[in-house]
Structures are given as structure tokens and as C-alpha cells.
């Protein structure tokens, strides 16, 4: 027994020593791993199971006043290569070139590059991404990047602007409101398993960055589309270089439409020229021409130097003033002040300006906002050109009276007319109603802002009634009249400065019309400006019909009831299928024009109209001289039984 007890003690002792040695070895190893090599091993481990996750910014949307999206962001994958990790560049290039529809040679050149990282193709489609994922090639990877889409294409393209590949606003509203809509970017360290999968043991808090706010515009997509369509059609018809149309609510300064031509599609901004990207409504200034006579008329009425019925002698179309001869398009003798605007007499308005004097006139030009930016929330706005009266020569009073020697942006012009329309207040225009943050908080809100009172309400009403005459029979802007409504406005046909040789360029004109409707309770102020039309240059012929079509469509869209009772409603479908006209004699073959639409004669000169009518073998009745301003039957309508085309000409 004793021996056995000793044996146990010995074995226990051995076991103790063994365990002690083991503990020492384990402890030593633990010390070595945890303390001596701890930092290095920790780094190695972290590299294996921790990964920095970049959270991309989520850019807010751009919506019109009804919530229709004009710009949205999606995420698209971009393919990159790490050339030094690729085993077989030739084979990989072939596969990628085929999937991504790229030149294999170019891809191979990138694969064999010395750079550690090269982009193969950015922002690819989801199907392409799936096929590349399936390839599973070492050295080829994909990365999510934000991609901006403009679902309405070119609609308000110049106004909205565009963003870079890194989601930074570069032009238009995308640039102006970039800080509010960009969204925040960030990064978070996440764990991943042996297969590289994300394991979000820390939760998703670090992966959620606040997205950018949404821009709610004052723009109405329907009116914008109408304005762009009408502008484009007219520019095509008159072979013009460019054009602008703006529609504004006169009481709030909200811009309902801002159309530019040439158009610009921000989805392909890199492929389009700087001319297409240009927002001419604020970035270009033009000599306004006769539309500026209204400003002088406003000043003269407000200062009480003239009355509506005061008579002025218009020198039968030729007037020597300050060593120059001023001409009118049509000779006139005595004209009351309101008629001077109606027929757009340069001589008459010069005589009004003589009574007003340049200092007082200049004061009103400034008060109407010319020579300074309107403050619209669009980048790139210019001030126009306005010289101080001290530097005016003797003739400058006359030229300024009919809108020469001064340059204004279309936005300045439309806001000046808005001041007349709303009873005398110059408003600050805006295209953004509000910017709303991700939690519904309002980040920016543009309320109607009165810059100043320019003229009294009485003057504004008096001027509005005078401007109504322009679109009535005998005025230069009859083609701007809208059925059922009274329109107040003014035509303009301005010469263009010759930037190379000085003076004015021969044959180059800017045709414009600016006005408001309904004249006595305005809902809309619209300016239409057509740059360098070739077929016809008159504002009353080129720009006024665009105004009419925009105003007519917009008023219908805004559900503004006509002031004048309209015609008896035509039952829908009554004119849908033109029936063939019954022939008087069964044997007699009569050329039936009933099913043909009446072609458009508006804007043609007398000779062109006669030739066109002759080619169509229709009888024509003409009233007046110059250019066709109205026709009956209307373009697109049906021929009457008699097949007589009535043309009214003016110009």
C-alpha cells in the first residue's frame, strides 16, 4: 500500500510538472501572439475580415410642380481592372470586349497598362454586370456608382443642367442647388467572412447616410413641353438660328416654362455642344427692339407727360432727329399715343421720349430691372447692357425709346411685362418652389418676392388697355390673339449688332413677342424670342403665333375660363372622318379636296402664297400687303365647299 501511495504521488508530481510546462508553453505562445506579434497579427486579421465600405451619396430628384420627375438617380456598376493581377490579358480582353461592346484592342491596351487601376467601362447595364460577374476573373472588379437619369430627355434640359460622373452638379439647377440635393457620402468598416460576404454585426447604422433633398420646381411639364414644341416648329418653319420662350405667373414670379432652342438632352451632355447647353433665357442678352417701347410708354404715363389720347405727328414715316433719319415701316400722320404702340411707330415713340427726357426715362429703365440680374435662381445670369444717361449721345434717347442701344435678357423682359400685368410690382422670378429634405423638412422655400413697385396700378391698367390694341385689328400683333381671351402684348423686330464690323448686321433680326393673357386678369406672361429667322423677320408674324399657341394651350391646361363666350361646342368626332363631297353629276369627276388638310400659308410673302395656292389649284382672296398673318380655312382644317382661300396680309 505504501509503495502504491508513493507511486501515485510520483505520477501526480509528473503530471503537475507536465501541466506546468504545458501552461508555460501555452502562456509563452499566447504572449508571443498577443504581445510580441499582436499588432502585426491584428492588422493581418483585420485585412482579412474587415473591409471599408464606401457609402455613395444618394442625390435627390428634380420634380415639376405636379411631382413629375425630371431628374432621378440610379446606381449603376462600373467595371475596373487591376492589370498586374490579370493572368491572360488577351483572353480577358476578348471576353470583356464582347460583353461590353468595346474595341478588344483598346481593352487589351488597358489590361497591359502599367497603372495599378484602370476603368474599363463606367456605368454599365445590369445584364452586362451579371455577365461580367459570371466571368469571375481575377483582377477584374465592379463598383457601384450613382448614375443620373433625365427621363423626360431634352425637356427643360438647359434649365435642369447635368452632373458629373461623380454626381457633382456642373450646370443649371443641378449646379445651383448642388449642396442641397447632393446627399452625404461616407464610409463604414464592416466585417466579412471567409467567402468575402458582408456580415453586418455592427448593424446598418454606419451604412445609412442622409440622402439629398428633392427639388420641387415651379415648372409645369405640360406647358414646358408645349413651349418647346411650338418654339421648335417655328424655328424650323422660319429657318431661325435659336429661340427662347418663357412663361411666368405675373403675381408670384413663378416660371411655368422656360424653353430654349437648340434643345439639349442632359442624358448625353458630353456629346452636345456648348451652344446647345446654353440657357439663353438668362445667359444671352439681346437688343429688345419695339417690345421696349412699352417701358417708355409706362414711364411717360407714370410721369404724366402724355395721356392716352394725346396726338403726335408721325412725319409720314421719315423724321430727322439728332442728325439721323428715323423711319417707320408704314407712314403715319397724326396718331394718338395709344395708336403709337399699336402700330409700333418709331417716330411717335421718339417724340414721346423727347417729352419725357433721358434722365426720367433711365430711372424707369432701371426700376423695371434692366441693367441688373433679375435674381432668378438659375446660374449664369447676366445683367444685360445699360449705359448711364450721361454717356448717351443725342440720338441715344430715340434709339433707347425703340429698344436699340440697350441689351436685355429674355428673363428681364418678361419680368418687366409681368410688372405691368400685376399692377406695377417688379417680382423676382424663381424656378424652384422648395427643396425638401429626406425627412420632409423644407430646406429652401422661395416665396413670391416683390423687388419694388415700378408704376402705379392706374398706369399699369392704362398700359394694359393700350397693349390690348396691339393684338386687335390694325395692331402689329394680331396673330398673338387667343380665341376667347383678350391679349395685351407687344411685337418686336430688332436688328442685331454686327460684332465683327460694328453697326448692325444686314438681314439679321430678332423677332419677338411679349405679352400677357387674359389682359384684365393676367394668369400668364409669355415672351417668345426667335433669333435670326430667315423666311420672315417680323415679330408679329414669327413670334406672335408661338405666343398664341403657348398661351392657348397653357390657359386650357390651367383651366382658365374664356372671357368671351366661345363657339358652340363641336361634338367630338363630328369632324373626325371627312366625307367625300357628293358630285353634282354622276359622270363628272370632281377633284375632291375635302379629305385633304389645308396647308399652312401663315408667314409666307404675297408672292410665295400666290405660287403655293396656284400649285394647289385653289381660288385665293387677298386682303392687304406684305406677309400672310391669317388664313381661312385655318391650317390643318378642311376646305370649304367653294374651295376659296382667304388670306389676310400685313407687314
Amino acid at each position, binding site marked *: 500500500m505504501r509503495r502504491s501511495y508513493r507511486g501515485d504521488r510520483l505520477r501526480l508530481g509528473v503530471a503537475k510538472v507536465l501541466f506546468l510546462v504545458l501552461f508555460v508553453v501555452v502562456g509563452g505562445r499566447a504572449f508571443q501572439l498577443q504581445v510580441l506579434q499582436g499588432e502585426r497579427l491584428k492588422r493581418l486579421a483585420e485585412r482579412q475580415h474587415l473591409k471599408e465600405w464606401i457609402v455613395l451619396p444618394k442625390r435627390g430628384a428634380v420634380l415639376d410642380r405636379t411631382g*413629375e*420627375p*425630371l431628374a*432621378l*438617380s*440610379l*446606381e449603376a456598376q462600373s467595371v475596373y481592372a487591376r492589370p498586374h493581377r490579370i493572368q491572360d490579358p488577351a483572353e480577358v480582353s476578348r471576353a470583356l470586349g464582347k460583353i461590353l461592346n468595346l474595341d478588344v484592342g483598346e481593352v487589351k491596351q488597358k489590361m497591359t497598362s502599367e497603372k495599378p487601376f484602370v476603368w474599363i467601362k463606367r456605368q454599365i447595364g445590369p445584364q452586362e454586370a451579371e455577365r461580367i460577374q459570371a466571368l469571375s476573373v481575377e483582377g477584374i472588379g465592379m463598383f457601384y456608382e450613382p448614375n443620373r*437619369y433625365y*427621363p*423626360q*430627355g431634352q*425637356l427643360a434640359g438647359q434649365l435642369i443642367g447635368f452632373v458629373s460622373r461623380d454626381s457633382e452638379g456642373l450646370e443649371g439647377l443641378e449646379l445651383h442647388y448642388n449642396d442641397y440635393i447632393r446627399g452625404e457620402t461616407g464610409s463604414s468598416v464592416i*466585417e466579412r467572412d471567409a467567402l468575402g*460576404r*458582408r*456580415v*453586418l*454585426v455592427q*448593424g*446598418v447604422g454606419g*451604412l445609412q447616410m442622409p440622402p439629398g433633398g428633392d427639388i420641387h420646381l415651379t415648372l409645369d*411639364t*405640360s406647358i414646358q*413641353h408645349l413651349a418647346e*414644341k411650338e418654339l421648335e416648329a417655328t424655328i424650323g418653319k422660319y429657318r431661325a438660328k435659336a429661340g427662347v420662350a418663357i412663361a411666368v405667373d405675373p403675381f408670384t414670379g413663378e416660371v411655368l416654362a422656360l424653353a430654349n432652342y437648340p434643345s439639349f438632352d442632359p442624358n448625353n451632355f458630353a456629346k452636345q455642344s456648348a451652344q446647345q447647353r446654353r440657357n439663353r433665357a438668362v445667359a444671352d442678352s439681346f437688343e429688345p427692339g419695339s417690345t421696349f417701347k412699352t417701358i417708355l410708354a409706362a414711364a411717360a404715363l407714370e410721369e404724366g407727360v402724355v395721356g392716352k389720347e394725346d396726338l403726335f405727328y408721325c412725319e409720314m414715316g421719315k423724321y430727322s432727329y439728332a442728325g439721323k433719319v428715323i423711319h417707320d415701316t408704314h407712314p403715319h400722320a397724326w396718331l394718338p399715343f395709344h395708336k403709337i404702340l399699336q402700330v409700333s411707330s418709331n417716330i411717335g415713340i421718339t417724340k414721346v421720349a423727347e417729352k419725357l427726357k433721358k434722365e426720367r426715362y433711365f430711372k424707369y429703365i432701371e426700376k423695371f430691372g434692366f441693367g441688373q440680374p433679375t435674381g432668378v435662381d438659375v446660374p449664369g445670369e447676366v445683367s444685360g447692357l445699360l449705359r448711364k444717361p450721361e454717356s448717351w449721345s443725342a440720338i441715344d434717347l430715340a434709339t433707347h425709346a425703340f429698344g436699340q442701344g440697350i441689351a436685355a435678357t429674355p428673363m428681364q423682359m418678361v419680368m418687366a411685362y409681368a410688372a405691368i400685368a400685376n399692377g406695377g410690382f417688379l417680382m423676382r422670378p424663381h424656378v424652384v418652389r422648395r427643396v425638401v429634405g429626406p425627412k420632409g423638412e423644407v430646406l429652401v422655400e422661395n416665396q413670391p418676392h416683390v423687388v419694388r413697385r415700378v408704376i402705379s396700378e392706374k398706369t399699369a391698367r392704362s398700359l394694359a388697355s393700350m397693349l390690348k390694341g396691339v393684338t386687335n385689328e390694325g395692331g402689329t400683333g394680331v396673330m398673338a390673339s387667343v*380665341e376667347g381671351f383678350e391679349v395685351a402684348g407687344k411685337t418686336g423686330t430688332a436688328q442685331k449688332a454686327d460684332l465683327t464690323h460694328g453697326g448692325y448686321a444686314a438681314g439679321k433680326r430678332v423677332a419677338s413677342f411679349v405679352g400677357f393673357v387674359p389682359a384684365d386678369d393676367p394668369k400668364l406672361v409669355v415672351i417668345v424670342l426667335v433669333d435670326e429667322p430667315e423666311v420672315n423677320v417680323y415679330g408679329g408674324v414669327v413670334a406672335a403665333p408661338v405666343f398664341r399657341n403657348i398661351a392657348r*394651350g397653357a390657359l*386650357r391646361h390651367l*383651366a*382658365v*375660363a*374664356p372671357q368671351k363666350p*366661345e*363657339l*358652340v*361646342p*363641336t361634338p*367630338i368626332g363630328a*369632324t*373626325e372622318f371627312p366625307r367625300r363631297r357628293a358630285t353634282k353629276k354622276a359622270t363628272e369627276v370632281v377633284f375632291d379636296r375635302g379629305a385633304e388638310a389645308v396647308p399652312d400659308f401663315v408667314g409666307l410673302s404675297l408672292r410665295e402664297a400666290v405660287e403655293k395656292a396656284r400649285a394647289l389649284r385653289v381660288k385665293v382672296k387677298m386682303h392687304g400687303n406684305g406677309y400672310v398673318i391669317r388664313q381661312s380655312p385655318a391650317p390643318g382644317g378642311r376646305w370649304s365647299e367653294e374651295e376659296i382661300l382667304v388670306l389676310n396680309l400685313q407687314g
Partner: protein
Amino acid sequence: MAAKPSVKGLRSQNRARVNRADRRRRQRHLIVFVLSTLGLIGVALLHVWLRLQVVHMGYVLSTTSKLQNRLEQENRELKVELATLTSPDRLEAMSRKRLGLRPPEKGQVIVLP
């Protein structure tokens, strides 16, 4: 007269009592040791289980987060598609070509006061 217990008997009785008490004490120690060890093992297992649950939830969260992102992306794609399909330009072209519609003529629109 009862027989007196012998000294030897008393000693053995005392030893037995001491042994019993000693055994009980050892048993108590053993129970305490076993319970503590089981407790420790339990805590350790609980920790491991919790850790496994965290990892498991991490996977679930990761999958759900991916699903959320995918659905959000899909939602945005559908919004883009809807906006593209309902753009005024396309609607006008389609209503003219497919349905033979045209802008209303004079008198065909009546605005109710």
C-alpha cells in the same frame, strides 16, 4: 448492568464521525466546484451562442440590407421607366399615331366656373 463501551470502540466511532463529516465537506466542495464549473461552462457556451447569434443576425441583416437596396434600386428604375413612358413628348406622339387624337378645337373645351 450495561457493558461499558471500550476505548477502542469510542475511537473508531469518533473516526467514523470525522470521516463522515469530512466526506460531507468534500462532497459539498465537489458540488460547489462542479456547479461553478458547469456555471462557467454555461456562461462560456452562452457567450459562444450569443456570438453565433450575432454573426447569424449579421448575415440576416446583410441579406435584408441587400434586398432593401435592390428593391430601392428597382423602385427607382420603375420610377424612371414610368416617367419616361409618360413623358409629354411620347404621350403626344402615341395619342396622335395610335389613337388618332388631336388637340381640341374651338369650343371643344368647356371650362366650368
